[in-house]
């Protein structure tokens, strides 16, 4: 049997998003390591899997996908009966989930990823952190987290009272930011802080850390 394969890198936030979902669903899979330093993701055969040249790419039997949030949604729907529930039944609940996923993608990730890039990933390439950018992006992240603080005062997790894809999508970037001074933005907000502690201590979240 061909099984599930993820083509990516174990340190990549987008790859981890998919791996966490697979762990939540207790699915077996193979992680095929793509050599980013060598530009493997910008060449064939990887480009046939994702013409945009970004990791991860995914395969389940012969079925191929890319874009981490499309992959996690496929996993959550296709394997709805396995492992932990990552969705919320009913069209209104699914709409709230969809809204939460859009907020993560458009409001949270754009800012949080910049903070991760400046403070962590730039160092891997011998570049210097631009503190002015960090300051500016932390102001923006603070405003998003203020909204999350209010939401998490009403609901245990972002979409509803159980863990879903909405919370899951945040985990990889948050794990990195907890190792930077940006951690204070999470610590200063009690509901956000409790939520972060909860989602990062899940067994599936721990499994992706190197």
């Amino acid at each position, binding site marked *: 049997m061909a099984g599930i394969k993820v083509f990516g890198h174990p340190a990549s936030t987008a790859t981890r998003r998919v791996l966490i979902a697979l762990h939540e669903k207790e699915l077996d899979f193979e992680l095929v390591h793509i050599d980013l330093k060598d530009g493997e993701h910008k060449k064939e055969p990887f480009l046939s899997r994702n013409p945009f040249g970004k990791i991860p790419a995914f395969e389940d039997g012969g079925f191929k*996908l890319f874009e981490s949030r499309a992959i996690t949604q496929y996993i959550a729907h296709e394997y709805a009966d396995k492992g932990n529930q990552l969705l919320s039944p009913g069209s209104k609940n699914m709409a709230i989930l969809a809204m939460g996923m859009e907020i993560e993608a458009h409001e949270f990730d754009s800012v949080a990823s910049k903070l991760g890039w400046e403070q962590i990933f730039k160092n891997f390439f011998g570049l210097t952190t631009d503190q002015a950018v960090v300051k500016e992006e932390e102001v923006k992240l603070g405003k998003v987290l203020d909204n999350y603080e209010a939401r998490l005062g009403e609901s245990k997790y972002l979409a509803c009272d159980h863990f879903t894809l909405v919370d899951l999508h945040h985990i990889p970037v948050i794990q990195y930011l907890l190792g930077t001074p940006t951690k204070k933005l999470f610590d200063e907000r009690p509901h956000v802080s409790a939520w972060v502690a909860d989602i990062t201590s899940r067994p599936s979240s721990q499994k992706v850390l190197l």
Partner: protein
Amino acid sequence: MAMKVYGNGMSVCVARVLLCLHEKETEFELVPVDLFACHHKLPSFLSMNPFGQVPVLQDDDLTLFESRAITAYIAEKHKDKGTDLTRHADAKEAAIVKLWSEVESHHFNPAISAVIHQLIVVPLQGKTPDAAIVEENLEKLGKVLDVYEEKLGKTKYLAGDSYTLADLHHVPYTYYFMKTCHAGLVNDRPKVKAWWEDLCSRPAFLKVSPGLTVAPPTN
């Protein structure tokens, strides 16, 4: 009671929702929000969308924001009428629709929105467009459209041979883009051009496009 959409027809994100409502032949009420008077920053609006952006959808006791979450909800709620926008009957086809919707969201949208912001919004604020930002994003957009050109050589629409949300989400920004002097990026790619012309021929588009009225200044 009909769904309410808060926003204005000229807004790209509102137009995305209006296209979906028309494709689904669903009645709705459009409630204008005066952006120039900053009504979207008032507490009454922020209680609906704490991020202070249009559109917002109200359907009975459900309040939603984020245009692509709204289109997903409308398409699911009314999956048995109008155009099949999500290919919901087949899990794998549905996943491919989500994939190309993510592509629009993460590859196409950042580049095209940066260009439109510089060429249309910035002059309205009395400032000069940043040519470097425009050039950088036109290059990114060109690369995305190269991928589309190849994909549209294999399938009629982005996610397959049927029109879906993956195509629909592109329409409003592309409409404005085609009014700028950079329309060649689309017109020079025959498959992308044919796809765009097809999207513009749809009845839902013909109902929504008159509301997309912000005109870019001429060169």
